[in-house]
């Protein structure tokens, strides 16, 4: 209860519009390296997006009749959602398993997850040829219930709502809306349970999307188990992202983080690396089973086979061992290294299934155009901008305003007494 920061006092009586307007203004220095790099790229990206809607998708992408899905789906959507998996894993640990230790990273992880979905769903719209018809499957004009994509799209939508509810207490605290805060906090558990269920289904669903492309995906990456592999790998993909993002936030937003949280951070990282080790072990074992089951030994000694081995050994087995070793040796640097290697491995895996291994035997391969890459970066940078904007204003990393605890205490008189006595 040492919350020194009062983000906004209770706003009763003050004009909410004035408050919002004040909050809109940028904070902090302008000429940071990140701004200098990201601003021109974002403007260039916006220009390219205009061209895309004006001249068609082919004007700025290298997609073809043979390769209908490229970087925007393979990286932005499929890989991005895997990285956003941290939110369902952490909420599971904190709200379902009641592992209180991880409570301090819930908000930032959920915020990250929510923004990721918001922007990747946005990226999906860029990739749709006829985005104005996107309402058809939503308003029930046409329910393609036999489509995996239908399931995934709906789950994206519902999960975003669940995440918004999970995050909403922070918004209420920012706006100083005490009563709303109470109501919204009460909805958290339901949103969490719903969100985890949705996540399990659409994380695996993203893999199931490719089940019908049976002969088109390289046999080392295609199997009927893609959905399970995607689900299991989303656990450590998400957590590695949490570790990575946490390490950066600790520095960049250090003035917002209380000493208590800073101390906790190391122990949280260690806990997460333990879980990653376990999940990666399960994943590696599953991959091994799939390989044995598919009997594709002969393919291992081809260029694609060596590429496969690089992914499995260099970016699954090695980081797994690193994670294992780092939490035993209590080495933070190794944890970060393991997180980065794991993330590279997840990117490789998702791209191998969706882009690199897709029609691998074609004469001409798909390579994304520089414009596709710029648009991807635009999406990424814009997300980081919004993330930073929110972190600088809402109680995400920093402590909640005092009244939150006061409210809690009045809610639970027995508990209040206990604490007073202590």
């Amino acid at each position, binding site marked *: *209860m040492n919350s020194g920061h009062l983000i906004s006092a209770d706003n009763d009586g003050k004009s909410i519009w004035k408050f919002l307007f004040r909050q809109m203004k940028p904070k902090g220095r302008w000429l940071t390296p990140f701004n200098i790099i990201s601003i021109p790229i974002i403007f260039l990206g916006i220009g390219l997006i205009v061209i895309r*809607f*004006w*001249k*068609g*998708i*082919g*004007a700025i992408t290298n*997609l*073809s*009749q043979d390769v*209908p*899905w490229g970087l925007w789906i393979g990286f932005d959507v499929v890989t991005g959602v895997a990285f956003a998996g941290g939110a369902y894993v952490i909420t*599971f640990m904190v*709200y*379902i*398993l*009641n592992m*209180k230790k991880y409570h*301090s990273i819930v908000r930032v992880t959920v915020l990250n997850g929510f923004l990721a979905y918001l922007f990747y769903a946005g990226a999906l719209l860029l990739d*749709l*040829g*006829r*985005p*104005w*018809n*996107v309402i*058809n*499957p939503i308003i029930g*004009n046409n329910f*393609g*219930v*036999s489509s*995996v*994509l239908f399931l995934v*799209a709906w789950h994206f939508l519902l999960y975003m709502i669940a995440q918004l509810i999970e995050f909403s207490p922070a918004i209420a605290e920012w706006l100083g809306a005490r009563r709303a805060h109470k109501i919204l906090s009460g909805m958290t558990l339901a949103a969490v*349970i*719903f969100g*985890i*269920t949705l996540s*399990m*289904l659409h994380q695996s*669903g993203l893999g*199931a*999307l490719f*089940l*019908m492309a*049976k*002969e088109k995906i390289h046999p080392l990456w295609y199997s*009927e*188990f893609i*959905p*399970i592999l995607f689900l299991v790998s989303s656990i450590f993909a998400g957590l590695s992202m949490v570790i990575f993002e946490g390490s950066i936030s600790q520095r960049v937003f250090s003035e917002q983080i209380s000493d208590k949280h800073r101390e906790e951070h190391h122990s949280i990282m260690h806990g997460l690396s333990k879980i990653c080790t376990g999940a990666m072990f399960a994943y590696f074992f599953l991959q091994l089973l799939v390989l*044995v*089951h598919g009997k594709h030994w002969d393919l291992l000694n081809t260029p694609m086979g060596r590429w496969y081995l690089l992914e499995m050994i260099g970016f699954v087995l090695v980081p797994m061992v690193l994670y294992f070793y780092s939490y035993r040796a209590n080495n933070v640097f190794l944890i970060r290294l393991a997180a980065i290697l794991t993330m590279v491995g997840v990117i490789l895996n998702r791209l191998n299934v969706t882009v690199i291994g897709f029609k691998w035997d074609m004469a001409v391969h798909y390579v994304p155009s520089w414009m596709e890459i710029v648009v991807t970066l635009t999406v990424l940078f814009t997300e980081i901008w919004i993330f930073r904007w929110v972190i600088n204003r809402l109680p995400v990393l920093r402590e909640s305003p005092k009244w939150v605890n006061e409210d*809690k205490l009045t809610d639970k008189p027995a*508990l209040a007494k*206990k*604490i007073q006595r*202590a």
Partner: protein
Amino acid sequence: MDLHRRDFFRVLGATGLTLAVGKELKAAPGPKASLEFRGVLYDAARCKGCRGCEYDCAEANGLPEPLPTKDIKGLRTTDDKHRTVVNEYKTSKGIVYAKMQCMHCNEPACASACLTQAMTKTKDGPVIWREDKCMGCRYCMVSCPFNIPKFEYHSANPKIEKCTMCFETRVKKGELPACVENCPNEALMFGTRRELIQEARRRIFEKPDLYYDQIYGEHEAGGTCWLYISPVPFKEIGLNTSVQNASYPALTKGFLYSVPSVFVLAPALLLGIQQATKKDNSTKPQDNE
């Protein structure tokens, strides 16, 4: 290992089925229904490669006129300007032609992939695309085992192009598809799959030396409405022989069937765990974050 193979999705699938009351996933057409679908039999032994069908198709569907034969080099595929192409193959029995277009699968991967039902299998058999529904996600292209749907990448209002068997414009009114009607060599025959398979068998039976003894499309991808017979093995005339015989939508059914059961079981399980761990904690003093 063989136990693993069936994997937990299958088990879940079974539970899912029983739990999914009222949630009917599109049922596969029975073997009976699929024999009554309309389709076309293409006889590569009769086709002389005049490419008349390409011109008729372009005209009937408002597409640009195809290139004259003398300007064509190598093999072509269908694309966003050509719903059908006729290629020339040098085979073990000399030159053979093969026409390519949508196969109008009995259980089309494209339609099961389509989340807006823009791609849809009509009761009569043709698989059609509906402009007002499609959102241009191109999942149909990813899923079609024959790589048939094509997309207009250079348009702000792009369409998916593929053969529709002239369903809306002709077949519905009882007319023949444009290509069938105009083929001067009777290489194309329109009818129900039952009739076409019978006819194909008859031709193969009567001239066993002329034909390779198989009907392409009878079982491929779960059966297709467009059927082929040919003097040479189908691989030699560029047909996709790596497709599986089972239907493609079946590949995702296990996953889709498991969804309802996950929706019922997971929240209950999660709530149970939550309650269990909560009790555990309430004995310890809470530190209030």
